C-alpha cells in the first residue's frame, strides 16, 4: 500500500469511527431543503409555475382552420404553457408509446372544409396515461379551442364561405365594393356575439395510448430540486472545510512533524489530504443526492453528468480549502476565516437566494463561486 493510500484509508477509517459530525452535516441540508420546500411548495397557496406541457400535433387537414389552430400555439401565453411539436400520425403514436409527450392532438382531414360547410368535425386528443394531470390540461385546452372555433365557424359561416371561395379566385378580380356588404355583416355579428351557440360544430374525442408510456419529466416542477443543490453545495463546503482544517490540528499536535520525519514526501502528503477531502465530499454528496431522490423525488438527470459535476465541485472545494490552510497559522484562525468565506459564497452563489434575485450589480460576483457553478450545472443536467 502506498503512503498516500495509507493516509487516505486512515482518514476514511477515522471518519467512519466517529460519523456523528458527518451525519449532522448530511442531515442539515436535507432538513433545510425540506423546510424551505414545504414553505414554498405549490400546496401552500404560493404561485408556482407549471412546466411546459409537451404536446404533439398531427395536422391531417393542412387547411386554413388547422393553420389557425396551430398558429394559436404560437401565441406567447400559450407558448409558455405548451411545448408543441408538429408530427405525422405514425411518428406521434411512436412518441406517445415512448412517453415522450403528455398528449397528442389530431386535427382530422377536411377539418377546414367541414367548418366552412357547418359540418361536424372531431378533434382527437390522445393522452399519456403515465401522467397525472398534464394530459388533462392539454385536453381542457383542446376543448376550449373546439368551443371557440365552433363559435367562430357558426357565427361567421357566410364569411367563411366567401373566404373559402375567394381563396380560389384571383385576388385582383375582387373589388372592395363587392366585399363591403360582407364586412358590414361581419361587424354586426361581432357586436352581437354574445348569444349562446348550439350545437357545437367541433367535438372532442379523447383517448389514451394503450401502452402506458413513461411520465414526461416535469422539468423544474419539483421545488425541492431547485432548493437542494444550493443547500448541498453550501454544506459540502462546510464538510470539506472541516475536513481540510484538520491539517491545522495535525500541525499543532505534532502529527505532521512526525509524518514528515518518515520517508513520506510533501507531495504525497498534499496529494493524500486533497484526495481524502475530495473523496469524503463525493461520498457525502452522493449519499445526500440519493436521499434527495428518496425523500423529495428529485430526478438529478444523467447520472454520469451529475457524477462528473460532483467530482469536479468536490475537488475544487478540497483544493481551495487545502490552499487556504497553507496560509492559516492555526485551527482557530482557519475556522474564523473559512466560515465567513463559505457564507459569502453561499449568499452570492445562489445557495441562500435564487440567482435571479441577486442584484444585477453583484451578480457578476456569483460567477466566481463554486455554489453558482454547482447550482447552474445541476439545474442544466436536470433540465
Amino acid at each position, binding site marked *: 500500500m502506498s503512503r498516500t493510500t495509507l493516509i487516505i484509508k486512515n482518514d476514511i477509517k477515522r471518519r467512519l469511527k466517529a460519523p456523528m459530525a458527518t451525519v449532522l452535516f448530511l442531515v442539515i441540508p436535507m432538513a433545510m431543503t425540506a423546510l424551505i420546500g414545504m414553505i414554498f411548495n405549490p400546496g401552500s397557496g404560493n404561485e408556482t409555475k407549471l412546466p411546459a406541457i409537451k404536446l404533439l400535433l398531427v395536422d391531417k387537414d393542412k387547411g386554413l382552420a388547422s393553420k389557425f389552430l396551430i398558429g394559436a400555439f404560437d401565441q406567447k401565453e400559450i407558448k409558455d404553457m405548451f411545448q408543441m411539436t408538429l408530427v405525422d400520425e405514425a411518428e406521434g403514436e411512436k412518441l406517445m408509446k415512448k412517453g415522450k409527450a403528455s398528449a397528442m392532438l389530431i386535427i382530422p382531414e377536411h377539418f377546414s372544409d367541414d367548418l366552412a360547410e357547418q359540418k361536424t368535425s372531431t378533434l382527437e386528443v390522445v393522452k399519456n396515461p403515465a401522467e397525472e394531470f398534464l394530459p388533462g390540461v392539454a385536453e381542457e385546452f383542446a376543448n376550449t379551442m373546439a368551443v371557440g372555433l365552433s363559435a367562430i365557424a357558426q357565427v361567421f359561416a357566410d364569411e367563411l364561405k366567401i373566404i373559402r371561395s375567394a381563396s380560389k379566385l384571383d385576388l385582383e378580380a375582387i373589388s372592395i365594393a363587392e366585399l363591403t356588404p360582407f364586412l358590414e355583416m361581419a361587424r354586426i355579428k361581432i357586436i352581437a356575439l354574445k348569444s349562446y351557440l348550439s350545437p357545437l360544430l367541433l367535438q372532442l374525442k379523447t383517448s389514451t395510448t394503450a401502452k402506458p408510456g413513461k411520465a414526461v419529466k416535469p422539468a423544474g416542477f419539483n421545488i425541492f430540486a431547485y432548493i437542494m443543490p444550493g443547500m448541498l453545495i453550501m454544506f459540502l463546503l462546510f464538510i470539506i472545510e472541516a475536513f481540510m482544517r484538520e491539517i491545522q490540528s495535525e500541525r499543532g499536535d505534532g*502529527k505532521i*512533524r*512526525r509524518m*514528515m520525519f518518515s520517508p513520506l514526501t510533501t507531495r504525497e502528503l498534499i496529494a493524500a489530504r486533497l484526495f481524502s477531502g475530495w473523496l469524503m465530499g463525493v461520498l457525502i454528496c452522493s449519499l445526500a443526492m440519493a436521499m434527495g431522490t428518496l425523500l423529495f423525488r428529485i430526478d438529478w438527470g444523467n447520472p454520469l453528468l451529475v457524477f462528473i459535476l460532483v467530482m469536479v465541485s468536490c475537488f475544487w472545494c478540497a483544493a481551495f480549502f487545502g490552499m487556504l490552510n497553507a496560509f492559516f497559522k492555526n485551527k482557530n484562525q482557519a475556522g474564523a476565516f473559512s466560515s465567513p468565506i463559505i457564507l459569502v459564497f453561499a449568499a452570492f452563489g445562489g445557495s441562500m437566494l435564487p440567482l435571479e434575485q441577486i442584484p444585477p450589480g453583484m451578480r457578476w460576483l456569483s460567477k466566481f463561486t463554486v455554489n453558482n457553478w454547482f447550482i447552474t450545472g445541476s439545474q442544466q443536467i436536470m433540465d
Partner: protein
Amino acid sequence: MQQTILEIKNLSKSYGDITALANFSLNLGKGEVLGLLGPNGAGKTTLISILSSTLLDFTGTVAFKGQDLFSDRRLKNLIGIVPQEMAFYEDLGALENLMFWGGLYDIPEKELKKRALELLAVVELSARAKEPIKKFSGGMKRRLNIAIGLVHQPELLLLDEPTVGIDVQAKVNILDIIRNVGQQGTSVIFTTHQLSEVEQICSRIAIMDKGVILAEGTLAKLIRIVGEKEIVDVSGEFTADSFSEIIKLADGDGIEILSIADNQALLAFANSDRIPAMMQHLFKHHLHISDLKIKSPNLEAVFLKMTGRSLRD
C-alpha cells in the same frame, strides 16, 4: 572503539537576532544513550527539529552512518522520533496507530503487524490494543508515543522530553523502556529537564546552553568539573545581591558560588571544615537562613556551574 552513528558538525540556526544553535557539534556512538540537558531556550528542540528534517533552513552538516542525513530520504527508515506532543490519532486504537505510523516506513505489512504486536507487549498495552486511545491514561499514551517511534526498528531514536506530565510509576516504566532500547543497540538522544532521569539511564550527558555544548561526558567525568567539593544548598529570606555582598565580606578562599537567586544559593566548599564558620558569618550579618543541605557533588551542581541557571529557568 565505539562506531560513530551520528556526526553533527558546526550546526547553526538563528531566528532573527536570536541564535538557537551556534556551531553546534556532537558525535553519537552506536548503542549510546545521550542525555541532552539544557534550560529553556538552550536550542534542544531546534536540534531535534533539524535532525527530524522539519527545520531545513540551517548551516552545518549532519552525517548519519557516514552519509548526509538529508541527501537520501530512505535514511529516515533508520531514525525514529518521539516528539514531546502526543502525536497520534486518539480516535483509533493502539494497534491501528502502530500500523498507520509504521506503514509510513518501508516495512512489509506482515512484518509490521508482528513488530507492532511485540511492541505493544513491551510497552504493556497488549490487553488494550484495540481500545480507542482517548480512553488511555497519560502514562499509557506516553508509552504508546514511544512505541510509535520504535515501530520501524530505528538505529537512532530521538526523544524530546518523553516523560513530561506523567506520574512517577509511569516515568519509571518509560525510563526502563529507553534503557532497554539502548541496551539492544539503538542509539538514543534524550532531551529532558529531569536531571535524575539523565543520571539513571544515560551513558553520556551533554549540557548545552545558548546553542552550544558547555560540557559533555559520562556522569563521573562531569562531576569532576565541580571537583571533590562539598555542595551546600542554602535557603532563607534574602536577596541575591545581599547574599553575594555578605559572602564577599567573608574570607572567600575555597568557597565558590555555583548559583545564586533570591532566597536560594548553591555554594561549593573545597574544605567542609569551613562550612560552620561561613554559617556563623551569615548569622552575624542577620541573614535569615531557614534550611541548609550539604550534598555530594552531583549533576545539578555541574549544570548550575556550567549554565549559571537552573533547568527550569
